[in-house]
């Protein structure tokens, strides 16, 4: 049965130059099609833009707050607990020495008796303290680092240096405020990530649905293209480019929204920072937000179109 042997193959166009040329033509044709219904195109793109701008903008905000928390002077303080043997006069000298350091903005001495008074007042254990024959509390020097000490690491290094003083038994960094803020921004950042994933899903659905409608509208055209020998890849292509364009337009809109928001917030934030004697000002776009929009947008558009095309194109068959 010679006829059962291998079938003669089909000639396929594999010239990369013409292939690229067809792609370029097809992408422009898709853009042209979108531009012929500008209102609905812009509305879809705007929804995508908002969905992209929201997590990017929030990420930017959290990023800025984080920088704020590490640059805000007064956020950290160091408690220097003096050794038991240090007298009140010596303690005052230590305070002066510490206060003279260039990296210290302010140093305040709480003497042993003052500490005891405070303890009585605040703890409610005053009676118990009376029973002791001597004051168990150490003298403390409260140190507020100079504004030049910018972040938690630097404060930590400073504390380690202070610890070397002979009279100082323990230098404890009080980072509670910074730590709390860090924990809050961490939680918000997680929330932004979840939001970003949800909104990415929304973009997929939006583009997918738009492309699905487009496939329905062009049902007979697809049928005829299949009749005259259009490959699935050929038929898929304009829809994929459509998704890509939607994503790009959405990204451009998102970028505009975020930059506008930054511009509008810049004045108030600077005034606010001024009140706290901070030189803080809003950052320009960070790379994650920027790439999230500019790469994420088109990628999501393409993926959404791909999903729709994969589900719906096979159902269109010529009769």
């Amino acid at each position: 049965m010679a006829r059962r042997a291998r079938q003669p193959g089909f000639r396929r166009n594999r010239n990369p130059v013409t292939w690229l040329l067809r792609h370029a033509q097809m992408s422009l044709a898709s853009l042209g099609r979108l531009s012929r219904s500008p209102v609905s195109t812009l509305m879809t793109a705007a929804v995508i833009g908002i969905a992209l701008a929201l997590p990017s903008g929030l990420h930017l905000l959290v990023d800025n707050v984080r920088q704020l928390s590490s640059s805000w002077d007064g956020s950290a303080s160091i408690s220097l607990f003096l050794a038991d043997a240090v007298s009140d006069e010596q303690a005052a000298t230590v305070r002066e020495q510490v206060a003279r350091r260039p990296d210290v903005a302010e140093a305040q001495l709480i003497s042993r008796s003052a500490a005891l008074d405070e303890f009585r007042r605040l703890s409610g254990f005053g009676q118990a303290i009376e029973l002791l024959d001597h004051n168990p509390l150490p003298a403390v020097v409260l140190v507020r680092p100079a504004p030049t000490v910018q972040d938690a690491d630097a404060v930590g290094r400073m504390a380690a240096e202070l610890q070397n003083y002979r009279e100082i038994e323990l230098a404890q960094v009080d980072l509670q405020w910074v730590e709390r803020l860090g924990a809050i921004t961490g939680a918000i950042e997680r929330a932004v990530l979840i939001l970003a994933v949800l909104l990415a899903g929304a973009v997929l659905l939006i583009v997918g649905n738009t492309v699905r409608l487009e496939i329905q509208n062009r049902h007979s055209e697809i049928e005829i293209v299949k009749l005259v020998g259009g490959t699935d890849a050929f038929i898929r292509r304009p829809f994929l480019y459509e998704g890509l364009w939607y994503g790009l337009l959405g990204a451009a809109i998102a970028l505009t929204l975020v930059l506008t928001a930054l511009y509008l917030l810049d004045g108030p934030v600077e005034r606010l920072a001024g009140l706290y004697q901070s030189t803080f000002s809003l950052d320009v776009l960070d790379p994650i937000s920027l790439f999230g929009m500019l790469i994420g947008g088109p990628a999501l558009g393409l993926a959404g179109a791909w999903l729709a095309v994969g589900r719906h194109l096979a159902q269109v068959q010529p009769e």
Partner: protein
Amino acid sequence: MIRFDNVAKRYATGHEGLSGVDLHLETGEMAFLTGHSGAGKSTLLKLIGLLERATRGQVWVNERNLNKLRARDVPYHRREVGMIFQDHRLLHDRTVFDNIALPLVVAGMGHAEVTRRVRAALDKVGLLKKDKVFPISLSGGEQQRVGIARALVSKPPVLLADEPTGNLDPELSREIMDLFVQFNQVGVTLLVATHDVELISRLGKRIIKLRDGRVAADSGADG
């Protein structure tokens, strides 16, 4: 060029559109497919264009067993089979030129070559001056000729036509049939389904008559 070996087509409804059909068309042959409505003419043509697949037996077109053709090869097969329909199946939002160019664009042909070929096809069907109009502004006969030009523009070795003159008056129908005879004279293999026996009897071509999905008579049958 076209061969059916004991072919049956059972539709999803359970109805057999074709049963036990044996048929052989030589390269360059022209034949008419006749029979009452529902006899299976369209079904037979669809099997050749792979709009449907045979449920039994084997269909061969251009040395290839269509049963063994993978889905991704189907578009390439269709490029070798030009198809013409009673309802023309034109794109109404595209010009005559763009409609006819479609098979070439789909095959990735360059612009200059497309223009040359489309003009040649328009010339063959006598519509050279109508290239920029939309199909809707053409008469039924002209629309059918656009459909014919689209089917032949890529020079496929096989042309199929399903009731191409179904909506046309006798005069126009004769013109269309004469056009097919011309194509056949340059070597194209043609299979034309029609129930208009009067129209085709004068042409002296092979006539295959279907009844209830079987070949009832074949004027050119030689085994």
